[in-house]
């Protein structure tokens, strides 16, 4: 099946390289077009997964925020054991939030390796630029990665004008509100100095 689709994809991807511009400009344009496809496909995939699982992500954030807030209150009340208990759970939830976000970001990159593989099959060994006064050459990875960053950055600026992505951004803002406000430690600044006590972290507390 893949063998029958590949020529179609290949001809679609190669088309912008052949529109009659000077070779260098055509190469940049064609590669930037691939970067745009990668960005759109990646952002939409990430958005869909977010919508699909938004309750789950919101719950994780809410629990993380709640446990963090309890731990801060515990310090205010000088209850070290409660602080440690709540902090243990806050860290547990943070770990989950961290890695679920890492997975989401990885999802947004899925088209990139395929683009790199296609570019490798088409342009491997071709020097696009040479760094002046050196023997260093720059190939398709340089052009693609630079294009991808610029396109993705530019895309982040026009997101609010794209209906589907705007909707996703609005949902995110809404979910952030639902998760609650994370208590800042600023509130502890009001503790009178004579009441300050060292709240050690178990194994990081100086063992020297």
């Amino acid at each position, binding site marked *: 099946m893949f063998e029958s689709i590949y020529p179609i994809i290949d001809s679609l991807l190669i088309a912008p390289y052949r529109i009659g511009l000077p070779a260098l400009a055509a190469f940049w344009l064609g590669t930037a077009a691939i970067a745009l496809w990668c960005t759109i496909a990646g952002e939409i995939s990430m958005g869909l*997964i977010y919508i699909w*699982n938004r309750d*789950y*992500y919101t719950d994780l954030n809410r629990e993380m925020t709640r*446990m963090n807030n*309890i731990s801060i209150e515990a310090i205010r009340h000088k209850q070290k*054991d*409660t602080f440690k*208990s*709540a*902090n*243990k759970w806050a*860290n*547990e939830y943070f*770990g*989950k939030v*961290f*890695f*679920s*976000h*890492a*997975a*989401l*970001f*990885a*999802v947004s*990159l*899925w*088209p*990139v*390796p395929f683009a*790199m593989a296609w570019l*490798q099959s088409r342009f491997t060994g071709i020097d696009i630029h*040479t760094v002046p006064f050196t*023997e*260093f050459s*720059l190939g398709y990875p*340089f052009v693609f*990665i*630079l294009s991808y*960053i610029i396109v993705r*950055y530019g895309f*982040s600026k026009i997101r609010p004008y794209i209906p589907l992505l705007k909707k996703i951004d609005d949902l995110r803002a809404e979910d952030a509100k639902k998760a609650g*406000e994370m208590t*800042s*430690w600023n*509130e*502890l600044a009001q*503790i009178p*100095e004579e009441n300050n006590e*060292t*709240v*050690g*972290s178990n*194994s*990081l*507390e*100086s*063992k*020297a």
Partner: protein
Amino acid sequence: MFKSRKSLLIMALAALAVVAYIQPAFADRLADAISATPKGAEAGQINTELAPGFLGIPGGPSVNLVIGFVWAIWVGWIFSTVGAFGGIMAGVGHITIYGFGNYASTFKKTSPVMNKLVTDSIRVSNQWLVGTSAAMSSFNYYKMGRLVLPLGLSLAAGSIAGSYLVPWLTAGKVSLKAYIGFFGLFVLALGCYLFYETTPKGQAGKKQAKEAAKAFEASIKDEKEGAKVDTAAMGVKVVSFAPTKCIFTFYGVEFSFNPLIPVVGGFIIAALASFLGVGGGFLLVPFLTSVAGLPMYLVAGTSALAVLVGMTTSVFTYMVVKDTPVFWPLIGVELLGILVGSFIGPRTSKYIPDVWLKRLFVVLALYVGIRYSSKGFLGYSLLPPF
């Protein structure tokens, strides 16, 4: 994760990645490694009569993209539900499921160049799993005063030292058998740790902690203040920094830690990662969250910084200094697997509790661990395939 400042970091990381792809026109690491490896049908030799496999090396393990995809679904599932062990799972996949680690280690004596090249490729394949998004948040955390710079830098220093020193110290001194045995022991240790977490005793500690937190929450409900604060106004103030004791205040509360612990921790993590040919980033966050026991408010920023530094070094080490080849189709298929895993993971978490996913991991870890350590230290595998 999606804040405005991240775009700046994207640009910076991107610039690094671009620099990373500057390649000397005369360098072709893979071709050099193939020509430097003895030819023949023995282990540690390249049999030129066989079909090209991994990275196009004749006789290399053939990469089954379907297995890669299915394994990545499992990785994505773990990533989205249990958390940190997704990275470990990916590492186990690259080393054992595809047989790359085994293949790399056959060249340890006969062709150190080829051994390093395949090992580096496995590591690069694991690197993208590290929380890039978290790295981008470093700047935001720093602005909010949620970053303990000395701690983050200590961790990073340890891991950089480990990445460079360990290959240098172990080069040519570790036999294939020992390498496989140590990898088995590492996975076995992970399995045992996780097994403890799933026992009633391990569960009880967490349950008690949650109940204590809830009881306290109920007791202070009446005096809850909802004052909004400016997080940028005050933050971490380092009071003193000595080799064995760093004291910092956080909004009037004093914390202290021994910087040697994160340095040693970072070093051990990087050493393990270097030695085993896996990325170390997946171990940093669990280290900070469980071993270090810092307040979560600080762990978030500090781990993001450690990941950022670690990732930047990896990019430089593997792409600039060494021109490491990467098998792109496998990475693409794995990312698609993670996509599917991220879709189904949170949906199944209602029906399959974390503890059962962990138990599934324990079974896998015991299998991989026993098989590899027996193969390494006894010379034969106690479990199939023998």
